[in-house]
């Protein structure tokens, strides 16, 4: 270790490596990803806790209300329910991102990162990459649970993979919503209050009930909910009951399941970046 007390500035003459390169951005991104994954490695039960709500919902809706639920156009309600549950879990995932970002901001971790010679993009990109890995793990666990409860995907392997791809695409777009909100809310406690908003938003969709069974205006809102597009598209791809109401947005669910996440990303990614840059103002 260097101990030249007279002039520490002269001690380290090693040139600073070029931190602007893409390679460093990728390396830093990976290091931040690894950090988040280490959280889960240390506390694997965290994933199970997060999945408690969707699994409980599946049990409640599938078995308690299930027999009273009807699926327009016929089909098993539990078959209808599972893809909705996958989509809802992806949608609620933005809360993980929000809480993680606001916690880092409130604890000064964001400032520490910003005072370091790392790539500024890595904080969000690493967070997002880790969130996608976690989301994939969540989907796997949920799918296995669904299979145990009798759910079947009958659309073939490529269509099934495409369905999971659309689910992850939705989650990807919500990373930027999460980062943006995480920079916006003042405290982790305040972020918890977002559940109150997020919950109805996920409910007013085709997650649990077909929009065609709702009052007209509410059904229209539910049908145009981005979560509905992903849910309906994955139902189609999995070969599960779709229960479409014949509206344009439901007829073009796969297209909309691509368009919505791209639109959300196009709006929220720049907002998140701007928010991050405004930290230095």
């Amino acid at each position, binding site marked *: *270790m260097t*101990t030249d007390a007279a002039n520490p*500035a002269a001690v380290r003459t090693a040139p600073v490596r070029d931190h602007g390169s893409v390679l460093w951005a990728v390396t830093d991104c990976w290091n931040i990803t*690894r950090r988040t994954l280490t959280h889960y490695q240390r506390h694997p039960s965290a994933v199970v806790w997060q999945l408690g709500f969707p699994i409980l919902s599946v049990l409640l809706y599938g078995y308690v209300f299930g027999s009273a639920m009807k699926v327009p156009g016929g089909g098993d309600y539990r078959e209808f329910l599972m893809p909705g549950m996958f989509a809802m879990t992806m949608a609620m995932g933005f809360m993980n991102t929000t809480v993680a970002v606001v916690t880092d901001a409130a604890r000064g971790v964001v400032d*520490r990162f910003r005072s370091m010679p790392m790539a500024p993009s890595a904080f969000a990109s690493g967070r997002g990459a880790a969130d996608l890995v976690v989301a994939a793990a969540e989907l796997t666990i949920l799918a296995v649970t669904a299979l145990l409860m009798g759910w079947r995907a009958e659309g073939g392997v490529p269509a099934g993979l495409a369905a999971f791809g659309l689910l992850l695409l939705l989650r990807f777009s919500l990373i930027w919503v999460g980062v943006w909100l995480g920079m916006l809310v003042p405290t982790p406690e305040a972020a918890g209050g977002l559940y109150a908003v997020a919950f109805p938003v996920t409910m007013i969709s085709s997650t649990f009930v077909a929009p065609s069974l709702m009052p007209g205006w509410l059904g229209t809102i539910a049908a145009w909910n981005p979560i509905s597009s992903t849910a309906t598209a994955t139902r189609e791809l999995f070969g599960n009951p779709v229960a479409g109401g014949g509206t344009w947005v439901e007829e073009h669910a796969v297209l909309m399941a691509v368009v919505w996440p791209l639109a959300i990303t196009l709006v929220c990614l720049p907002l998140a970046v701007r928010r991050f840059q405004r930290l230095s103002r």
Partner: protein
Amino acid sequence: MLMPETGSGAASGYAVLAEGVVKRYRGRGRGGTEKRALDGFDLAVRPGTVHGLLGPNGAGKTTAVRVLATLLRYDAGRAEVAGLDVAREPRRVRSRIGLVGQYAAVDEGLTGRQNLEMFGRLFHLGNRRARQRAGELLDRFDLAEAADKGAKEYSGGMRRRLDLASSMILQPDVLFLDEPTTGLDPRGRGEVWEAVRALVAGGTTVLLTTQYLDEADKLASRVTVIDRGRAIADDTPDALKNRVGGDRIEVVAAEAGDLDAVTRAVDRVAGGGLVVTDATARRVHAQVADRVAALTEVARGLQDAGIAVEDIGLRRPSLDDVFLRLTGHGAVPGGDGRGAGNDDHIPAEVAA
């Protein structure tokens, strides 16, 4: 005011140099008033020393540190850290500094060791070197025993030490410590002080902000006092204390109605000095030359007049007194819109 003796230019010879730095914040909303968090701030820190930056809440301490640590852009003036221009070469500055903010920037989801390894990798040390450096720092900051425990279980002092260790990965030339002991118990403060002394012995320059005069007194060889975004004094702690003078007598009246009588009694022993009356706390205090005589006289006078007091005593000069003497107002800001906690721009930013 505080112009460097060696003139300006990249090779100023100072570890930290600020000249006339201005940082403006625009008030929120349309027609919001502009606030100057820094208003021509000057600072010169010699290499290898601990330099204290003292000031009340809202004086601009945190803003100054955030500007120098490249977290905030400034609007005018010049700032240099480790011989590098802060505005022009923020990335190079970042590889030469460490920052310890008001909250321990510790990842509670990781162990102490994992925290240090993560920061090491983010400083591009590579896996092997990051592991090695983490081990060294855990030993050096006396955290080896708790290294593989979750940081969540650490005490306040341990968190702070881990925080310090994280900022020392690259052995920075300049370390910014922003109120590192706020919220710590006396033992935790002692632990942090020990760590800071060890760092300086290793050649690091430390810029320390604090609200505690005794902290600056224990650690800093020089102190800059900041008020309303400007440096209003720059001296050794001893010289500052001499300016404040000796002990103060302090009386807390039992009844608010007796405040005038108490003020008069204190005024008689103040020798013409300033007598401060705090109506909300029912407290009156003033500087006194002869401690015991003043205490006796005030106590007897109040007793003779039949005035009940809740508390009466002598106390050592505090930062409050330094401010009173230097600025004419106390360390606790009044209703001028710079209320407590506003020093830090974070709440406003995040809440916006």
